[in-house]
Each structure stands twice: as structure tokens, then as C-alpha cells.
């Protein structure tokens, strides 16, 4: 019986510490962080256009596209496709995405289509694309917007984020930031 009494009391006090005080402390300190613990947002002319870290759907030809998403970039949820590497229907989907990419990007050869741009991310909210995926879209975006390819290429150059400390991990391009800058080019 003593064991149960100890168990109950110990549980109570550990709940207060681990589930009460601990997250509250992190929340309080988090108020000092960028975004004040609510997530970092990006604004254009005072209007919120999104969260810096949360990917968005870009399917119009005038924007740089993001990767395919299993949740259609609605961050109310998050998920990958969970398709296995040999699933025939999955491979058909990828084929369709390649075809559609080639239709929208005349002048791009099949061998230039980056695989990561036609495969879905793990979260369905990937905010980034690889530099190759950005460069391969320059031609299309330039044509649609009537801008020079050189100008767009240098815009992408400026948005390539180098690996951590220059040596750790991949390079990437934040699609939302790139498209916001693209809108400001006009």
C-alpha cells in the first residue's frame, strides 16, 4: 500500500516539474527568440505571406515551384507519401510529374530534370529546393515574366544558402524567400 501512496505523490510532483515547469520555462525563454516562440514569419509590405520555415505550394508558371507534397502544403497536418521505392503506381506518378515538368519547361531536356523536384518530401512542407532545381526553372520563369535569364540566374545565386559553416550538409534555396524576391524584381 505504501508503494501506491509513494507512486501517487511522486507522480504528482513529477508531473508538475516535467509537464508544467519545464515547458513553461522553455516557452518563457522562447519569447526572446526570433518569432517570439510562434514561428518566424515573412511579411511583404506589412502583410504576412507565410512562415520562413514552412514550405508553400507554388504551381503557377510565374513562380519557382516547390517540391511535390503529400499534404498539398497545408501545414494543418504533415506527412510524406510513404511510397515504397518499387511501387509501380508511385513510379507512374513520378513519370507523370516529369512529363508535366517538361511540358511547362520547354527547352529543358529530360536528363536535366532533378529527381528531387519530382519526388515528395518527408514532411510535405519542405521549404527548400536544391540549387539545381532552382536553376532548371530559370528559363521558364524568365520567359513568363519577360525578364532576362541572366538577371534571374543572379537572383537564384543570391538565394543559394551554402552548407553550415561552408562544410556541413547540403546547399539549398528557400522557395518562399526566392519568390518574394522575385515579386520585388518588378
Amino acid at each position, binding site marked *: 500500500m505504501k*508503494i*501506491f501512496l*509513494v507512486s*501517487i505523490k*511522486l507522480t*504528482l*510532483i*513529477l508531473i508538475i*516539474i516535467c*509537464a508544467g515547469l519545464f*515547458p513553461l520555462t522553455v*516557452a518563457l*525563454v*522562447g*519569447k526572446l*527568440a*526570433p518569432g517570439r*516562440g*510562434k*514561428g518566424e514569419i515573412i511579411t511583404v509590405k506589412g502583410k504576412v*505571406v*507565410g*512562415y520562413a*520555415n514552412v514550405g*508553400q505550394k507554388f504551381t503557377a508558371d510565374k513562380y519557382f515551384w516547390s*517540391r511535390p507534397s503529400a499534404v498539398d*502544403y*497545408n501545414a*494543418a*497536418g504533415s*506527412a*510524406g*507519401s*510513404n*511510397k*515504397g*521505392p*518499387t511501387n509501380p503506381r*508511385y*513510379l507512374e506518378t513520378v513519370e507523370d510529374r516529369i512529363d508535366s515538368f517538361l511540358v511547362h519547361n520547354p527547352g529543358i531536356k529530360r536528363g536535366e530534370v*532533378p*529527381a528531387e523536384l519530382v*519526388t*515528395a518530401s*518527408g*514532411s*510535405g*512542407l*519542405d521549404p*527548400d529546393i536544391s540549387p*539545381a532545381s532552382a536553376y532548371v526553372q530559370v528559363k521558364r520563369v524568365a520567359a513568363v515574366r519577360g525578364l532576362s535569364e541572366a538577371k534571374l540566374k543572379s537572383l537564384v545565386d543570391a538565394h543559394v544558402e551554402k*552548407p553550415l559553416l*561552408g*562544410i*556541413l*550538409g*547540403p546547399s539549398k534555396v528557400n522557395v*518562399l524567400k526566392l519568390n*518574394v524576391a522575385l*515579386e520585388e524584381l518588378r
Partner: protein
Amino acid sequence: MNTELFGVIITFFLSVLLAFPLGKYIAKVFKGERTITDFMNPLERLIFRFSGVDPAEGMNWKQFLKAMLSINMLWFVYAFFALIFQNKLPLNPDGNPGQTPDLAFNTAISFLVNCNLQHYSGETGLTYFTQLFVVTFLQFVSAATGIAALVAVFNGLKDKNTDNLGNFWAILVRSITRILLPLSLVMGIILAFNGTPSGFDGKDTITTLQGDTVQVSRGPAAGMIAIKQLGTNGGGWFGANSAHPLENPNYFTNIIETIAIILTPMALVFALGFYINRKKLAYVIFGVMTFLCVLFIGLNVYFETKGNPAIDKMGIAQHIGSMEGKEIRFGSAATALWSVVTTSSSNGSVNGMHDSLTPLSGGILLLDMMINALYGGVGVGLLNYYIFIIIAVFISGLMVGRTPEFMGHKVEAREVKIATLVWLLTAFLVKAGTAMAAYMAAHHPDLAWSVNPSAWLNNPSYHGFSEMLYEFTSANANNGSGFEGLSDNNIFWNVTTGFVLILARYIPIIGPVAIAGLLANKKFIPESPGTLRTDSITFGAMTLAIIVVVNALSFFPALALGPLAEYFSIK
């Protein structure tokens, strides 16, 4: 690609580098020596006084287990009801519903046993109340329970002859106040400053640049994510776990979170050496674990960076590896590293979807969880390894024709029986469970459960079999990762894996603690030239061989039907 590989090497190297001093520190904490966290003393005294615990009171192995199981049972009841009635409790800004009884059963157990299988998605399946007061709470105490069980075994090994395995309550509390809480605080704050939400605001609704209206889930996630990584829990705040850009915002946090997965499990191996003053034994154990783990990492990094052969056949540019289910900011190499350490350590968090890994990588993860002792879960990983040691001691003893001994105590029929039963249970639960699921899917596809068996699998053929095998392997290893394509939120999966979780948690804890208690009670035999030295490299190799042989015998057929068959089908 080189910076990706370099990132993997640095991350692993840093883990070992940090685990060593942490191990030394953990040993000091439980020896009662002075440490830098002695400012926690007043808090601990307060906890002990409030709950009526005398931390100096010793317990024998039966008392120790009784205390552990009693409080665990209480936690289960508490968690189960909190989850069912979460919609009526406060802190539910998104208005999420209560869990169904079978889901609550599964969720309560899976967090209680440090598994975190998660048959729900965090954004819709829990409220902020249950995320904190059930999930975060259990993530602390279930990790502490594992550490307590391990320290009991340490105490059995330390003394030549003893009844006293330590005070369960005191070890439980100190695991939290001295190890888990300080580390989690530091890490939670690092995450918050890198973009992980920490405030209590509910879902936000925004209009995107392109003009779509979407919602963004948030919440006090940073602290919870810290403990889920550090306590080998693995159950994430968001559905996509650490693949979610708010749960793991950049490559730096990814390094921190990867290290956090294996930091404590590695440190506990070093702690063994410092605690019982047999450093060489700890290094040999660490060596065997690291050998296999690094081998697995190498293979997975190779397969994932090489890419999916089926995508190659399409003639497109697959330069940065197989990226289905992976995030650009981590890349294929760091995701491969994470996938191995998370299955080695029974953590089970993911930063990419395991279901979409190339076939052999998926197979290696399965094998890793079947072994479940390469660092392993906090505390319990080393306990699983202890079982392999007992079996290795026994077989070596037979080979040289001597009575097997471990650390000066005779290993006799009773101990070996316990060890063998613990091991056989693993093989039985994984294979019987998978067989049952496969039978349902094949012969009763139309059963009117909330998800018909015919709709369980997200992928056909061999990969579909792997999805079922993975779920039971993960449950049995108390890992919690999944081939998440499997539709597992229905009564079959919730209930069957729930029972696998209970058995696979408590029996592998009870077994080793009992063996340690029994051995420590026996007469101490001083070492002689004829003693089999368990801290030699030879014995390390012997244990490695036992691990390989035992697992190959148990699981090769199952692996052949799933990942291996899939691999050869695309060759």
C-alpha cells in the same frame, strides 16, 4: 555531396566526444559523488519529502521491480483516461477530439514503455494538454525508468556480494533532475532559438504568396522535442516528426537532434565502466556496438546517396540521392545517418520517411531494431546487450569446458534460462505478430474494422510485407518509428502492438534485473588464470558473433521475404 558526407562524419564523431564526459558524469551522479548539478539537491530533497521517500533505503531485486511496475501501472491508467477525455480538458486551442479507447490504449502504452509508436498524428490526435501532461511527462519518466533499471544492474555488478540494487525512487528522480531535465532545457532553448515554436498559440491561418489559404499547426513544441530526442522516446510533436520544418528547422538543429538520439545511450555504456570501475569492459562493449552501428551507417549512406535505381531508369538527374520522403535541408546522407542511429537506439524519431528508403536501407533498419542493443534505448539497450553477454558467457563456457562465470559469479541454469527466454520472446513477438497480420490481410481482407485489412498497406508486394514486419519489429524494439504508409489506427494494430509493447518492454527489463540480483547474491569467485575474461577483445568478438548468429537464425527468413526480395526485384 562531400559536405553531406562530412556532416555525417562530424555528427557521429561529436556524439562519441560528448558521450564520454557525460558517461563519467552519470557514474558520479549515481555513486553520490559531487557534481556540477548539486544545486538540484534542495529540489530533490523537496521531492523526496513530499512523496515520503527515503533515498538511502536499499531495495533487493524483487522490491525494486515491484516499485517500478507499480508506478508504471499508475502512469498507464492516468495516461489512458487523460487521452480519452482530452477534448474535455483545457489547453485544446485547435478543438481536437478525444481518442478512441483502442487508440488511447495503444498511445498510453507506447509512451509508457518509451516506444512512442504513434498511431495518430500530433496536429489532430492530441491537445496541448495531452502533448505536455501525458506525452512529455511520460517521455521523461519512461526514460528515467530505463536508466533506473540499468543502474540496478550496475549495482548488482559493482559489489562482490549484495542484496541491495539501490532505491528505485531515488534513481528515478535523479535520472530526471540530474540528466534528462538539464539536457532537455538546454536543447529546448537551442531549438526555440532556431525556429521551433515554444509558445501556446494555436493553429494560424494564412494566405500564401500564391494566394492559397492554409493553416499552420504550432504549439509549445520545443521542450517536448528535446526530451523526445534525449530520452530515446521518438514521438514527435508533429505528424512528420523531425522531418517537419518546425520540429527540425535547419542543418544545425539536425546535428543537435541526431546527437541527442545516441548521446545518452552511448554515455550509459561509458558510465558502466566508470561506475563499476571496469573501464576496459565498457570499451569492449562500446567497440562492438560501434563496429556494427558504423557498418550500418556506411551501408545506408551508400544506398541512399546512390539513389533509387527505379528512378535512375527514368533518365532524370538523381544527383543528390534518393529524395522521396526526404528534406532538402538535410540531404540523403544525414537522413541515412539518422535512420540508423534512431533504430540502433530505440529512439524511433525520423527526419525522413523510412517507408520510402531504398530496399536494403529499410532492411538494415529492421535488422538494427531486431538486435536492439547497439547503444539501444536509454538503459534498456545495455540491458539487452547484457542478455547477449550472458548467452555468450554460457556458450564460451561450453566451448572451453568450464563453468561459465561473469564478473566473479557463476552463471548457472536459472540465469541462462532467463536470458534465453528474454531473447526468444523477441523473435516470437515479431514473427508471430507479422504472421497474424499477414494472415488477416491475405485471408480476411474485408473485415469491417475501421480500416479493412485490404486497405492496410500503402504499397503492394514485398514492400507491403515489410510494412507489417516493420511495425511489429518496431513495437517489439520499443522503437516507435514506422513504415508509416501502414494504416495502423484501427483495432487490430492498436491492440496487438499494444500487447507486444508491454511484453517487449517489461520482460527484457525484469529478466536482466533478476539475473543481476541472482548473480549478486552468489558467492564471489576471485579471478584466476582459468577465468574467461569478459573484458578482452576476444570476448567482444565472441559477443559480436553471438549477436550476428542469433539474429541471423531468427530473422533471416523474414528479411528475405521483405527487403531482400524487394531489392532483388529491381536489380
